């Protein structure tokens, strides 16, 4: 973990002193001006709860007593400098790492120790910081792998081409094409995914994740390497996804992007949560400015 500005543990503890109410009185979801209000009933319920999670790799504490919760229907930002533990947090939530201590509950049910594919079928889908598609498969096939997650028939159905298998294949293909259209790359459906442009690959990853019918979609730095124009398009896409009823967890570096789209934000640094709140609150938080943004002028 190489940070641009090192702080002593004392300072870090002080930074973490901000009281955090895990249960968060419901009320209105903080959102920036101009955002459409969510249709009633959906917002407010806790969808995912990260409960005092600590994760150590040997002597390195990657996550230190991190707690926050996501509510249904919101776009939630997880931000922090490089090495702050954002992706680690993601990995803990998707079953790649198992927390050393603490709990993670999704829709009220603990997901610690569950297998990765179980968590996916349970409703958490993700993309990767470094695109991890199946490079030799076509775009359509990539998405279909995601769609397969909820299919019932397997080897026997496929071997004898049973009607039910047939239906699932057809439905999966149609759904996948639909999703490719949704993310705007349906023209590339038959193209091997390694031949797609970087931006298309990122979109394809989102489509693949959406194909698993997630309740929660976790995007790990989806805008990395994007031009400003592409970022604007991505923002549109993220909002569109949220409008379909999917809760979005966004890890992002680009503050402008995060501020523009998220309802609430948690800021991590050195594996600790240093702030939580609406974009406006977080932007004005002196600890965040000090720890993450460096100089205030960057904060816009």
């Amino acid at each position: 973990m190489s940070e641009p500005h090192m702080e002593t543990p004392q300072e870090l503890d002080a930074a973490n002193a901000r009281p955090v109410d895990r249960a968060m009185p419901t009320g209105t979801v903080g959102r920036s001006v101009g955002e459409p209000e969510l249709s009633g009933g959906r917002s407010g319920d806790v969808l995912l709860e990260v409960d005092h999670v600590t994760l150590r790799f040997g002597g390195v504490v990657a996550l230190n007593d991190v707690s926050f919760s996501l509510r249904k229907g919101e776009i939630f930002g997880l931000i922090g400098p490089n090495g702050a533990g954002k992706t680690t947090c993601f990995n803990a939530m998707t079953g790649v790492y198992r927390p050393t201590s603490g709990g993670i509950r999704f829709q009220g049910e603990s997901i610690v120790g569950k297998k990765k594919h179980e968590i996916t079928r349970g409703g958490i889908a993700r993309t990767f910081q470094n695109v991890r598609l199946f490079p030799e498969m076509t775009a359509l096939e990539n998405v279909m792998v995601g769609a397969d997650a909820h299919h019932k028939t397997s080897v026997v159905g496929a071997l004898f081409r049973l009607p039910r298998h047939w239906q699932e294949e057809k439905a999966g293909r149609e759904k996948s094409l639909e999703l490719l259209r949704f993310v705007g790359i349906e023209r590339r459906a038959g193209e091997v995914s390694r031949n797609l442009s970087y931006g298309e690959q990122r979109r394809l990853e989102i489509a693949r994740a959406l194909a698993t019918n997630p309740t929660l979609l976790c995007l790990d730095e989806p805008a990395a390497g994007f031009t400003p124009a592409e970022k604007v398009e991505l923002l549109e896409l993220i909002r569109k996804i949220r409008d379909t009823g999917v809760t979005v967890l966004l890890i992002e570096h680009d503050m402008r992007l995060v501020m523009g789209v998220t309802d609430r934000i948690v800021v991590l640094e050195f594996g600790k949560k240093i702030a939580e709140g609406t974009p406006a609150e977080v932007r004005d938080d002196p600890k965040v400015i000090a720890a993450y943004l460096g100089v205030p002028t960057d904060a816009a």
Partner: protein
Amino acid sequence: MTTTETPPTGAVPAAEKKNWRTSGGVRGWFGRQHWAVRTVLALVFAAVAYLLPYAGDVPVLGPQIITEGIDWPSALFNMSYYVLLALGLNVVVGFAGLLDLGYVGFFAVGAYTVAMLTSPDSVLHTEWPWLAAIPVALAIAMLSGLILGWPTLRLRGDYLAIVTLGFAEIIRIFATSSETLRGDRGFSDIPHPPGSYADGKPIFGVADATPYYWLGLSVIILVIFGVRNLDRSRVGRSWLAIREDEEAAEIMGVRTIKYKLWAFAIGAFIGGLGGVMFAGQQGFMNSQTFILQFSILVLAGVVMGGSGNLFGAILGGALISYIPDRLRGIEDPIFHTDLFGFRFAIFGLVIIAIMIFRPQGLIPSRRRAMELKDREKEVAPQ
């Protein structure tokens, strides 16, 4: 081989419909043809295959194809079980990307089960007919695939290769030293497949291997259908996803262990089928049949033909059997001995040549070809 494509969804333009077809299962040129063309081609191909025992009667070309001095139908039958093994190994290595160096183990399990159940030499004294032993043999072969797969599939790449290598050797050594499996003495009088002509002569006799070849060919066609159906379904996609990025596959909801086990079990099933056919034709077998070389040879066939491509595996499997046989009776110009003695050296040279000039295999899987191209790019600085 009729091809049944899912009717494409209405909203998609024709240009894209075509694209799916290449992404089906049997890749490449063949896959891009109209289904009627493919059906006709496949039927012609099958017909030619069924007529191969009479290749010697074809003027001019015939004598070039067959090897003089050997029994051509027997050679064809040998090719048929090599092809069967290549098809099975292709599922494990080509589709799922699991390097199995001990594939002959499953062949042995299939053959030994048949021998144990049918041969009068067996301690079981059951002396079942060949046909009755088949389901048991296939079930045990599949089970052995699961038993080997369960503890080892957490291993990857080279480690898995070593364990599977050990598995085949354990089976061979056990067969050699065990009193029950009779080592070198082997099992004799394993019954042939049933059936007789109108005049009472058995169809599957000792003199003519042609019916065995036809039987083998029919089994191969069934296996092709089965494997192709799997390849073009979520099963094939899961295998491919596992091969490409196992962790990403699991995070996308693929039950990786389950599908890897299936790959192993299906591979073992097909390998066992090869063993069953072998035992039924030979009538005799012992532990010398199942040497390690055999596994390597089949793997070489799969890689040579084009790993991950059904047709590639078929061609590779046929060649590993055909090439050594074809060398019989040809005198080499230097030592004036039979070239058959140099078969492995020549075979090695052929493989090296193929690997140099066509590393993706003779009939490559479209994907593998691209992987290799990409690796070339990585090596050559741009």
